[in-house]
Each structure stands twice: as C-alpha cells, then as structure tokens.
C-alpha cells in the first residue's frame, strides 16, 4: 500500500551519530520481527516433530526427525474434519449472507428516500459502538428460547448483518456518481436492477474488503462459537482446538498441526490479497 519514496528534503547529512541511530533502529526492528514470527515458526516446526522431539530437553527448535505423523493422526485424535467443516460453514455462511444483506441495506441508505431513513442510519451507527460481548447474555437467552443453541442457524443468523458492513458499503455507494443510476432509472431499470447490475459491479473492491474482513473475523472468532455451541460436533476450529488442547490431547505435535492447518486458509489469502486485509482495517480509521 505504500507508494511514496523518500523525498529529497528528508535525505539528511550522514553524520556518524545519525547513521548509528538508523542502524540501531533497523536492528531493533529485525529483532522484534523475529519475536513476532517466532510463535508461527515454532508452531509449524513442532507440528513436524516426533513425540520424542517434542519432549526433548532442552527444547529444540528444529525437529531431529521430520515426521508427518501429526498430520495423519489429527483426523483420528480429534473430529478435525468436522471442526474444519463447521468453520467453513460458519465463516463462509456469515460472509456470504452479510455481504448480501449489508449491500442491500447500504444501497437503501445511500440512494433511496424513505421515511425514517436518518433514524435508521443513526441506529446503524449506534450499534457500531456496542461490542458484541455485551449483548452475549441476552442473545444467548434468545437463542435458547428459539431452541437454536448448538446449531448452524444459531451461529450464523445473529451475524447475518453487520453495522460495520452497512456503514462501509454506504460510504462507498455514496461516492459513486449519481448520474450512472439516474441514467439507468430513465431507461426504466428497476431499483433492484440498478443495485444488482450497476452498483454491485462498481463496488467490487469494497465488497471484497468487507468479505475478507468478515471471513477473517468469524473464522478466528472464539467467544461466540464457544458460547453458542456445546457439542463437540458443532465446535469451530479455535473453540474446538482450545478445548481439546485443554482436555484430551497431550500430543503437542497434533495440536500444532491443527493450529497450522487452521491458519493456512487465511495465510494463503493474506499472501495473495494482502491489500484487502489491510483496507478493511485502514478504512475503520478514515471515517
């Protein structure tokens, strides 16, 4: 995302002191960067260790014998395929549904005139300020009354719209020139057609940003699936791995293999489409 290079006026005279400071600064950055990546490196390398290596004293970073056993055992030791599938259904479902609903709501707030529009918009902004942890208790009661606890609809439906998504897309829709949809309206296009065939294609970058943001947050979410699900068959990856890690699994290699696999989809997506990850967060700052 950086595009600017260092301008001329910033190129200061190279005094020895300044040079030392620059070198020290970068050395510190490298050192801290090592600290930042170390847990990931440790996690991946441990997943290839044999049990003997895991418990070796003193602890070794590099496996003495490379072993893929953990990656085959994980499917038996944990209901790992089920956890993975649940994460895909939960995070994927929330992402698709909320992108559709958020864009519809955002279109209405950006383009249509209807009574109570301003109130609706302020309500959306107000919900932005309320963290979901606070609504957890009443929401749990509601799902309990619906008999929706421990089910996919219980996990997904409360997340079907997001104030952040509506806000983000509304801001984007407002920035699209009105002439485009006015022209379509004169040509007799329905509002839904304008939304589907004019606004949505133009909003692709914003939609991608929102989709990545939603997928990441739900894939990684811990507290919500922990509260809503109770049977092992309904757990998602973070909740499932954590509970298994605490209870049955003593085989760290298997646990680390699970952590590695669960990181893989987002890591790959991050590698290829970093800017969508960054944009989702960056836009929260520039409002």
């Amino acid at each position, binding site marked *: *995302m*950086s595009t*600017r*290079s*260092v*301008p001329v*006026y*910033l190129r200061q005279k190279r005094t020895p002191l300044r040079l030392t400071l620059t070198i020290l*600064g970068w050395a510190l*950055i490298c050192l*801290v*960067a090592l600290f*930042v990546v*170390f*847990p*990931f490196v*440790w*996690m991946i390398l441990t997943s290839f260790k044999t049990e003997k290596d*895991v*418990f070796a*004293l*003193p602890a070794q970073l590099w496996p003495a014998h490379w072993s893929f056993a953990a990656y085959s055992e994980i499917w038996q030791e944990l209901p790992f395929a089920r956890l993975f599938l649940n994460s895909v259904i939960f995070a994927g479902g929330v992402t698709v549904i909320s992108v559709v609903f958020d864009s519809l709501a955002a279109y209405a707030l950006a383009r249509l005139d209807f009574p109570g529009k301003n109130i609706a918009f302020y309500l959306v902004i107000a919900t932005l*300020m*309320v*963290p979901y*942890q*606070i*609504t*957890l*208790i*009443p929401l*749990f*009661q509601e799902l309990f009354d619906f008999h929706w606890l421990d089910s996919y609809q219980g996990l997904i439906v409360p997340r079907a719209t997001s104030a952040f998504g509506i806000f983000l897309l509304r801001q984007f829709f407002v920035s699209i020139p009105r002439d485009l949809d006015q022209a379509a309206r004169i040509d007799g296009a329905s509002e839904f057609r304008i939304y589907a065939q004019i606004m949505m294609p133009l909003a692709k970058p914003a939609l991608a940003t929102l989709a990545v943001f939603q997928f990441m947050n739900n*894939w*990684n979410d*811990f*507290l919500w699936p922990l*509260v809503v699900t109770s049977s092992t068959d309904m757990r998602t*990856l*973070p*909740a499932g*791995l*954590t509970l298994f*890690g605490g209870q049955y699994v003593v085989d*760290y290699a298997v*646990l*680390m293999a699970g952590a590695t696999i*669960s990181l893989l989809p*987002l*890591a790959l997506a*991050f590698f290829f489409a*970093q800017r969508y*990850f*960054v944009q989702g*967060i960056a*836009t*929260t*700052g*520039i*409002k």
Partner: protein
Amino acid sequence: MSLHNWSYLQSTQPFIGFQNYVDLASDPRFWNALGNTVIFSAVTVPLQIVIGMLLALKFSRSGFFRRFFQSIYFFPVISAFATMAIVWKFLLSPDIGPFAAWERALGIPTVNILQSTALALPAVIVVGLWKNIGFTMVIIIAALQEVPESLNEAAALDGAGTWGRFRNVTLPAIRQPLLFATILAVIASLQVFDQVYVMTGGGPLFHTETLVTYMYELGFQQYRSGYAAAVAWVLFILIMLVSVVQLRIFRYRDVD
C-alpha cells in the same frame, strides 16, 4: 435482564430491582476483575499506540524492506487469537517450552510464568500487544499516507526538524484517525478474553481474571444470567465513559 434473578435453570425469572448491582458492589471477584481489566487496558493502550505509531512512521514509505516488515508485524492480526494463545502457552511452558530452555542455558532459574501471580498479567499483556500492534500500525500508516507531502516539504523549508515536523505537521494531520485507533484499542482491551481464557483461565488465584472472563463464567458456567448481565452493563458503561472522555479531550485540543 440485569434487574432479574434470571437463570436458564429456573422456570421463573423473578424481578429483583437493583439487587444484582448491590451484590456486585460487595463482590470482591467483581472488583478484582474490574481492577485487572483497567490495569490491562492502561498498560496496553499507550504501548500499542506508541509502538504502532513508531512502526507506522518507519514503514509508511515505499521500499521492499519496509513492506516486508510491515507484513510481518501485521501477520498476527490475521491469526486466530485463541489458537495462537495455545502456541504461546506452549512457548511459555516451564518444562518443554523454548523460553524455559533458554533460561536454563543462560543459568537463570526458570519460573512458571503463567502460574506466577506477579508475571501472569504482564505475560497476557505482552501477548495481547504481539497480536494487536499490527492493527494500530495499519490504521496509522493509512492515515499517514493521506497527509499531503507538500505540508511536510513546506515545514522542512521553513527549517523544521524531524521532531518539529512530527509535532506540528504530522500529528495534527492524523489526529482524527489516531483518536479512532485509540478508541478501538481501548474498547478491544476492555473486552480482553481469548488469551486470558486459553492461557491462564483467569488464574492464578484470579490474578488475570477480567470483566469478560468473569461474565463468561457467571453467565455460561454458573448460569447466573441476570448477574452476568449486570457485569455486561458495567462494562458497557465503562466503554461509553472512556470513549466520551477521549472524544472530549481531542475536541479541546482542536480549539487551541
């Protein structure tokens, strides 16, 4: 709900007025959790903003290495905190963890950090910073790139040094996003849950118990929902108060 003696285990939910809040006021575990949450927040937020800002200033310009390091510092943001907290617990393990191995190699006595009443909370704070600094950094980088280059240039021509440009040009220009990053960091830190639940479970002896872990235990392990809802309201009011105060402070700066 917070005004009822509400529980899923009972068929009736009697109305008890403000009794839950009265009980809360004399509940030592609540005050302990509130205290831990405030300490966590008060230490985390300034460090997160200052370090995030320093990194952002260093990485906001182009260049392969800057982008490379920016990606590295951002990477923990995309990982699942609960899962990575398992890894951290492993790293800090006193018998098979690598940190303990280094301590032994250096001849330092090993401590069980997560079981230590003095070190568990700092450990949870460091891991929280590890996870979230990239988030703050990215917001500030985006803000820095909106600052017109000409402003900096003009200030440099007028003889402003690095600090002067930062204090008088950059800082005012990114005030709004900075405020936002701070509010987000405060809100997130007041709701700390994942790493505490996984790494220490609130222990040792409640030394890392926070408002949300206490609320979780009350609501979903003891099924005292009314009481847990009262804790949630306290958290909500706390978040609102801090956000309003921050908005005020930044507004006043605007006037002078």
